[in-house]
């Protein structure tokens, strides 16, 4: 009881800190300097109608590179931790007829939607991360429907490695041909609103999407194939 009261006091203190910070908060009336620069000159510089994409891929491209590397690291650590262990094999059950039929029907549509989301990332809401997550969910649906079928993990490994290398190569091409690392003006920016515009952004997002999809799928498959253990 004393313990809980201490915790409650701790949380209340933290809440009071948040409250003092936020009580007087009023939304700003205008954008700050960096944001208004992005909003004003970003369109001509980057050519992406979706400014979030412009920030994620071009202005803060290094952050995205770091993020993708963190995901890669997570997938590797998961594989290291889970697959190596020994334990009783999981008896796999067949999935139901409804799931099998529905997955056959839905998988191509979901895959197509994922590809649409990351190809149109510079025009509409969406992009490599969302599209990759949608691709991964289509592949996971396939696993759920056919749990007994073997998975060729090397495809994901190869896709992931190639996409990562291409991402960095495009970044280095930016140093050589344009203004700096991950600059998107390697090819002409084009007119805003076209599918083929915003320089290299659609191509970067295609590779980011493939990389994220492969990584998320390999995270789930590593979890799936780790040995089972029963806990009291």
């Amino acid at each position: 009881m004393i313990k809980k009261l201490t915790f409650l006091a701790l949380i209340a203190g933290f809440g009071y800190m948040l409250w003092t910070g936020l009580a007087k908060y009023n939304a700003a009336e205008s954008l700050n300097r960096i944001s208004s620069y992005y909003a004003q000159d970003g369109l001509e510089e980057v050519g992406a109608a979706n400014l979030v994409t412009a920030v994620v891929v071009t202005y803060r491209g290094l952050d995205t590179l770091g993020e993708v590397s963190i995901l890669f690291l997570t997938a590797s650590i998961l594989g290291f931790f889970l697959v190596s262990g020994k334990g009783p094999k999981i008896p796999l059950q067949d999935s139901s007829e409804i799931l099998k039929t529905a997955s056959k029907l839905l998988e191509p549509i979901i895959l197509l939607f994922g590809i649409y989301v990351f190809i149109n990332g510079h025009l509409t809401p969406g992009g490599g991360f969302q599209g990759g997550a949608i691709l991964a969910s289509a592949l996971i649906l396939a696993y759920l429907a056919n749990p007994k079928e073997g998975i060729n993990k090397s495809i994901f490994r190869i896709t992931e490695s190639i996409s990562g290398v291409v991402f960095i190569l495009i970044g280095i091409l930016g140093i050589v041909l344009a203004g700096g690392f991950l600059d998107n003006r390697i090819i002409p920016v084009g007119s805003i609103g076209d599918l083929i515009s915003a320089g290299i952004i659609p191509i970067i997002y295609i590779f980011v999407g493939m990389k994220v999809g492969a990584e998320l799928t390999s995270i789930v498959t590593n979890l799936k194939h780790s040995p089972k253990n029963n806990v009291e």
Partner: protein
Amino acid sequence: METNLNIILAIVIGVLALVFAIIAIYHKKLSVAIIASGAVSLMASILFLLLSAPDVAMTEAAIGSGLSVIIFFYALSKIRKQHD
């Protein structure tokens, strides 16, 4: 755009999110708690949409309430309690 309807919707969704969060913390069954945490993410994604951040809303809906629930369930199936 900000209308009264948006504000009422935000209050309803936010209260729902808090209720789901309490369920996620206090429900005895782990599977129910996991689904409740996915529902919190879903409510959060609606709030992002109200705050005019459709990109973030999409990501949160696809990753927070889709993939992370699947990951939780795979992990749970590995450490299934006998009496759960």
